[in-house]
């Protein structure tokens, strides 16, 4: 099993990349669950003016017919006007790109943003859609394959760490 990078180190790298591109017009939207935790911390560290948005993309997934709805759905919350906003979509891990696709579709149902960028802690490769992250903490050199899920975990004290789980 490959050594997983430290989440806090990647977080610092991400802040450094994003800071020069953040302004008064920037809004953050985190994807449940790992992306929402990450976005919460980024929102504070970057001093984002607009309130933090969070979305659960379950209703927009392309595997709804096969897998059904997840039993623990979260309520999406976009507490700012999407129209003309510069949005940074935040997720913990970028993999096939399907979650990002679903998230983009959901965002546009709130209005027309001026632009949307993607920020992720880790890019594990193996994309199935033409999607790339503008801000990325770390890119895995070797593919993990479909057998394992890489995800962010939050400890009781609030600290974040990456974990590999057998799918």
């Amino acid at each position: 099993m490959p050594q997983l990078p430290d989440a806090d180190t990647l977080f610092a790298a991400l802040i450094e990349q994003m800071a020069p591109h953040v302004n008064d017009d920037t809004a953050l939207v985190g994807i449940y669950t790992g992306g929402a935790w990450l976005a919460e911390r980024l929102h504070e560290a970057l001093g984002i003016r607009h309130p933090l948005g969070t979305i659960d993309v379950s209703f927009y997934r392309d595997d709804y017919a096969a897998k059904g709805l997840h039993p623990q759905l979260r309520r999406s919350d976009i507490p700012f006007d999407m129209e003309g906003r510069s949005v940074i979509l935040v997720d913990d891990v970028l993999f096939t790109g399907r979650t990002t696709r679903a998230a983009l579709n959901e965002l546009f149902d709130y209005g027309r943003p001026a632009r949307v960028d993607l920020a992720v802690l880790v890019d594990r490769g193996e994309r199935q859609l033409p999607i790339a992250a503008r801000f990325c903490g770390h890119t895995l050199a070797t593919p993990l394959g479909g057998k394992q899920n890489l995800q962010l975990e939050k400890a009781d004290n609030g600290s974040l760490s990456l974990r590999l789980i057998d799918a």
Partner: protein
Amino acid sequence: MHNPQLNAHGELQHLLSLDGLPREILTAILDTAEPFTEVAEREIKKLPILRGKSIFNLFFENSTRTRTTFEIAAKRLSADVINLNVATSSTNKGETLLDTVDNLCAMQADMFVVRHASSGAPYLIAEHLHNTRRHDIHVINAGDGRHAHPTQGLLDMYTIRHYKQDFTGLVVAIVGDVLHSRVARSQIAALTTLGVPEVRVIGPKTLMPTDLDKLGVRVFHDMREGLRDVDVVMMLRLQNERMSGPLLPSGQEFFKVWGLTPEKLAVARPDAIVMHPGPMNRGVEIDSAVADGTQAVILPQVTFGIAVRMAVMSMLGSN
């Protein structure tokens, strides 16, 4: 025994009645409805979940409001909705219920929303689909005779949970024409399953079914006694059109004794909520001062009803 509402995996296959559904499924529906309430606040009030699915509203009995809320729910899930006012079409030409269903199945129906004056009609359709091995087609009961109106019962439970958070410490009173009410039967089943410790039923003896004691409810024939210290008051509509024979003198007479006025409501808990499934008969079962008062949650019920129906349709659509 085969439960026609559940599939081989114990998931919801049809929604026919709240009676006989386990608490986990009721809770799952309420939980699923929660994020759907947010969709109404969006610029584009539509989710892609049922894109390409055909939902047939089969209303053998007129009900503009119920049909409309089902239609809105289905459309917000991107389904194609076909409204059949069957009361004025093929059945009048002599076609049987199951022949109508077979014809619509031949048009690739994915879901039927059925309202029928006869108790059990949606069961008949569900059994027919089961026997003909069409397991990918689902039935939702939108009210059958005096038997059940499960989505109304569910939206009532959603409303109670929204305002009271927890079911396990509540005293809930159902008031009015219980005898003719399919809504009351669905409410009693759901309240009991979700763990409400005390369900009261208040109304005149002539409008009470004889089998109430079997349902585990307390029966009251006096408003002030029955409403004392309740957390939730669920009013029922006086079902004029379902009334046969001289069960009641008149609407005004009924109001005097059984109408919910601010004075009668005052014996309930001060934070009690007042619910009504609609359409309301002001001055018959409810006073305008109560219907428009701060304790009434009658319009939020309508809004929650759409989210609850979206939840039911989206769960059926993936099972």
